[in-house]
């Protein structure tokens, strides 16, 4: 597994970022909310590796704190989306018939709404908050997973080992969770990894236009927005928060692609 280059690069990137975001805020001396008006808009230096922002706050600390928020949203939303999508996809694929037709039309309807506009509408009518963003993003991200899972279940349930399991007189729940679910895990894991990246991008986008995480809380999107106000003067704010997003998303995509390569070649079910 470790021999797969894409996977290795992605894992190293993600682990580094996770480690920095999780551990460093405890070690870093600077408080990400502490304003120091004597050090406003300082370019990167030894004391402030990423410089400071318009309120004299240390940007490195803020990006790490922001990373906690952005990563939490990415991972939590993906978790819920994958759980919802997997349940709906499995029910749809395994039972077929009218539940399948009804659920898949529901998926079509959900996919028919442009996700970003729904998010903006919902958030626009209420007060933007962390919890609301988690909920809305989760509720509008599961459809792709549901489709993938359904398609996988449709193939796997025709396999002889599933037929053999049915012939053992096992209950439908047991067949589903013991014989089908473990054999569709790899595409689920791959799409989950890829989803984390895309959710982080959406979260950053929302925060960038002021509909997501609200200042003074930091997320990569809000910091990016802040830097945008004086792109020429304080370029480091935009550069480093943008880089954080890009590197993280690339990391998750690399892991996703790498996992796909590894899992495909191992099961030999799909062409690599």
């Amino acid at each position, binding site marked *: 597994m470790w021999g797969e280059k894409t996977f290795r690069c992605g894992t190293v990137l993600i682990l580094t970022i996770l480690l920095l975001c999780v551990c460093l805020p405890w070690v870093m001396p600077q408080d990400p909310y502490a304003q120091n008006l004597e050090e406003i808009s300082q370019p990167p230096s030894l004391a402030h590796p990423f410089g400071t922002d318009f309120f004299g706050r240390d940007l490195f600390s803020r990006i790490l704190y922001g990373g906690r928020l952005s990563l939490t949203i990415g991972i939590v939303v993906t978790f819920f989306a994958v759980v919802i999508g997997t349940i709906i996809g499995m029910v749809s694929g395994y039972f077929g018939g009218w539940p399948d037709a009804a659920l898949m039309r529901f998926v079509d309807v959900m996919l028919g709404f442009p996700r970003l506009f729904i998010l903006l509408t919902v958030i626009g009518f209420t007060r933007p908050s962390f919890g609301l963003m988690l909920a809305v993003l989760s509720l509008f991200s599961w459809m792709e997973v549901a489709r993938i899972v359904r398609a996988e279940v449709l193939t796997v349930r025709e396999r*002889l*080992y599933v037929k*053999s399991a*049915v*012939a*053992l*007189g096992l209950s439908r729940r047991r067949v589903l969770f*013991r014989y089908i679910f473990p*054999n569709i895990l790899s595409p689920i894991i791959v799409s989950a990894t890829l989803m984390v990246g895309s959710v982080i991008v959406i979260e950053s986008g929302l925060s960038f236009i002021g509909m997501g995480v609200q200042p003074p809380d930091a997320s990569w999107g809000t910091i990016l927005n802040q830097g945008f106000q004086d792109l020429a003067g304080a370029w480091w704010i935009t550069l480093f928060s943008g880089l954080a997003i890009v590197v993280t998303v690339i990391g998750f995509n690399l892991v996703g692609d790498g996992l796909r390569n590894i899992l495909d070649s191992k*099961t030999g079910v799909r062409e690599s």
Partner: protein
Amino acid sequence: MVINPGRQILLEVKNLTVRYRQRNGFGWREKTVDALNDVSFFIHRGETLALVGETGSGKSTIAMSILHFVSPDSGEILYSGEDVWKFKRAELRAYHRKIQPVFQNADESLNPRLKVRSMLVDALVPALSTEEKNRRIREYLSAVQLDEDVLDCFPHQLSGGQKQRVCIARALATESEMLILDEAISSQDLSLQAHLLKLLSELKKKFSLTYLYISHDLETVRVIADRVGIIKDGRLIEIGEKDEIFNSPEEPYTQLLLERSRF
């Protein structure tokens, strides 16, 4: 076709017809293909009936229909006199445990994510104690001549012959009355085939099983079968005692099959 009055009929297939529907690319016109056409036969308890036919003749469809996986368009399948396609869910689960398939492709028949031990445990009656389960697993393993080492292996760690034995052990573990051997030994090499045939005969005696042996290979049929049915293009064209079929076949197609198998 004379029904022997002294013996109990375990499974009876009556006028079984199965059609597969094919649609053209746009899903407009439907074309039906007769996979099975008015097939009738029965199997006595304790007997081995072999169904012989070429690839695509419909013999596996018979197996799938008996196993309740392919629904018949008309006709009945009676197990101990009861129509299996009228079973409710609980009855169906009980029926499934009595009639176990062993497929040609052992690789495909074993869940790649489960160890052999878990697969066998799944086949046992759930109410048994752990000790009793372990005892039975050992018994079935030794019946199919496998070492206990295989219990902690995943299917991909086993050889082809071992996998097929695991499949047979699993089929026995449900305390089944009948095995449907759908080309069960065809993919093995010749020496292993001979070995498995011998094993199947022993198991049949030991566990008083009934076999429906489906194959294209007349040589193995000659060894194992009591009666033989010949399937061609979805029809059962001839059925009778093994010696009748092998020594004095009536249908020209049967004669042709026999001639070909002499090479």
